[in-house]
């Protein structure tokens, strides 16, 4: 008799525990319990936080409809108080052509009826390369190029990045064939996009783009950015004039 009772008691204990634990199924979209929600959720505006649910209350009017946002129109980031730096970061004076609305999705910005890409042929690099800053700029350029460009344009700028060699993407030009482009046009293409390439002004600021313009010039001229001991640029005989390089 005793045995029966023990088994019965044991069974009921097991059953109870099982029910207790199984009732804790969680919502996969919830990150779990919080000790004090008012310390976990910011009442001040933070990125990627859905403000429809604060302190257990759901406010549908505040529900997040968008998680990744581009900066509001006509706003510029704070770039410090150094006037040359701020001047460099001022909005781009060259505007994209109206056709960029359809081809590159540039809605909500001022567009131009002119072919400003052609006009950009005379634009000079806003950061002049000197014997002093050359090494620093090209090192920064390499970092930027590795992160932002290399997957398509390739480590050597030949248009054979991993995106192209994997067969996912096609039609990336070789920088070595594009020597006719001016600094301004390269800048314009990165800023607003060209052909298949999208506008990269949401990813790179103007200083970074001008740095990249310097960096990609190296693929066209191995001597680009090299200076001799007198601080004079080392010129390559064949295309010394096309690089537009002046110390």
């Amino acid at each position, binding site marked *: 008799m005793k045995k029966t*009772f023990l088994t019965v008691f044991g069974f009921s204990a097991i059953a109870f525990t099982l029910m207790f634990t199984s009732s804790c199924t969680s919502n996969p979209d919830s990150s779990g319990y919080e000790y004090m929600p008012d*310390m976990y959720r910011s009442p001040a505006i933070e990125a990627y936080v859905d403000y429809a649910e604060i302190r257990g209350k759901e406010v549908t009017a505040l529900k997040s409809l968008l998680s990744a946002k581009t900066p509001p129109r006509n706003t510029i980031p704070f770039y410090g108080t150094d006037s040359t730096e701020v001047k460099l970061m001022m909005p781009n004076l060259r505007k994209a052509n109206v056709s960029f609305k359809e081809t590159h999705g540039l809605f909500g910005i001022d567009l131009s009826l002119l072919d400003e890409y052609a006009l950009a042929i005379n634009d000079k690099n806003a950061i002049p390369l000197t014997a002093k800053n050359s090494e620093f700029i090209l090192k920064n350029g390499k970092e930027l190029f590795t992160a932002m460009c290399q*997957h398509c344009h390739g480590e050597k700028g030949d248009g054979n990045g991993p995106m192209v060699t994997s067969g996912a993407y096609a039609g990336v030009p070789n920088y070595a064939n594009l020597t006719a482009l001016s600094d301004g046009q390269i800048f314009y293409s990165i800023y607003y996009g060209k052909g298949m390439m999208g506008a990269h002004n949401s990813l790179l600021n103007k200083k970074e783009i001008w740095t990249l313009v310097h960096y990609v010039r190296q693929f066209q001229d191995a001597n680009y950015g090299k200076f001799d001991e007198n601080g004079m640029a080392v010129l390559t005989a064949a295309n010394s004039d096309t690089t537009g390089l002046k110390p």
Partner: protein
Amino acid sequence: MKISNIQMLNGLRKLVSTVLMICLSLLNFNALSQGEALFKSKCATCHQTHKNGTGPKLYQVRDKWASGGAKEGSIYQWVNNWQTAAASDPYAAEVSKWSPTAMSAFPDLKKEEIDAILDWVDAQPDPAAASATAGAGGATDGSAGVMSEESEEDSVAWIWIVMGVIFIVIIMAVGGVRRQLSIATSEDPTSQEKLTYTEEFRAWAWKNKIYVGITTLVLVISLIVGFFQTLATVGVVEGYQPSQPIAFPHDAHAGINGIDCKYCHNSVTKSKSAGIPTVNVCMNCHKQINGEGKPFAGEIQKIYKAAGWDPSGAGKYTGKVSPIVWNKVHVLPDHVYFNHSQHVVVGGIDCKQCHGDMTTMKEAVKVQPIEELNKIEGNIKLTKPTLTMGWCIECHGVKEVAIGNGKNAYYDEIHRRLKKDKALYRKYLQDGKITVNELGGWECAKCHY
């Protein structure tokens, strides 16, 4: 004799014709390879053979022009300068409206060269047809996998509940039968009958007090342990894997296609937040990569809908955007301050130290458990669960800070002062490195304020 002559003549003819054939095919081969080289250097930036891009696909474009009613030779004129062709041929004028992007002029290309290019293009097989037959069998859908796993977990929970109910019914039934039996078989029916269930239970418990005592003790201890274990999981988000609006495979992007993490999460070096890419970043590649004929084409359609991209024809942005709501995975409580740029730029921490190896992550992003993170080569090995305070503190205790290398003014200043206070510097350097906690990385106010 005559017959043999004729035979010889025939043989000679055959020989000559084969030699001619070989010569012709060699010429043809040369023309094809010349076409390929020209296509790659002049056309490939905008045109593909079988897919519309910035420019329309070029496969059998000559037949298309001819059947479309274009004037003889106007296609060559078009390549040399599309504007003169559009002015003289109404079909070319129609073609010029295909896309607002104007084609570059190639005045140097001769008619034979253009033919060589187009011959080469027409000789190319359609890659979409080949991949469609190959890809039909091996469909991998990330979202489907997550879904089935979820429902499986749900059904398991139901089994437990049903089993629990069955157990309780059995226990009550057995208990009732036993009671009836004991009443029926009892020699003294009067004494038993008057006992209520509670009294009977008490009597039974008293009789078996050792067993009841031990069982109660075990139950109480296990309940207390369970309670504290449950408390310890509050705020621990290891393995958290929320659903996402698009089944995004990190392995295809960061792994196979070698895209740097910083391309899409580009604010990681500048801001507190690493950033979720806006849809225009997706479109930088997906304007071309539409996944046609692949099992994931539907997922890319979601990007097109979000970006307002109409892929038909040359494709164009319509301006009708519908934003994507991604679910945040790595959630830190608001009372913790964490800054990505400080860790990535100043600290030089690789993404994989905290987020795991995304180049092999096929499914939706999740908070990687610490065991997974420790498997990755080059990671600092830690023991506490990912994204808990213990985990942060542990890493701050062992991670070396590169000070005095001129990269960071704050650390340079610390280095300058440490050089003055040699005793302290030596004390810090006892383990051979300056760790984060030695520079105040364990101060409460570093992260909580």
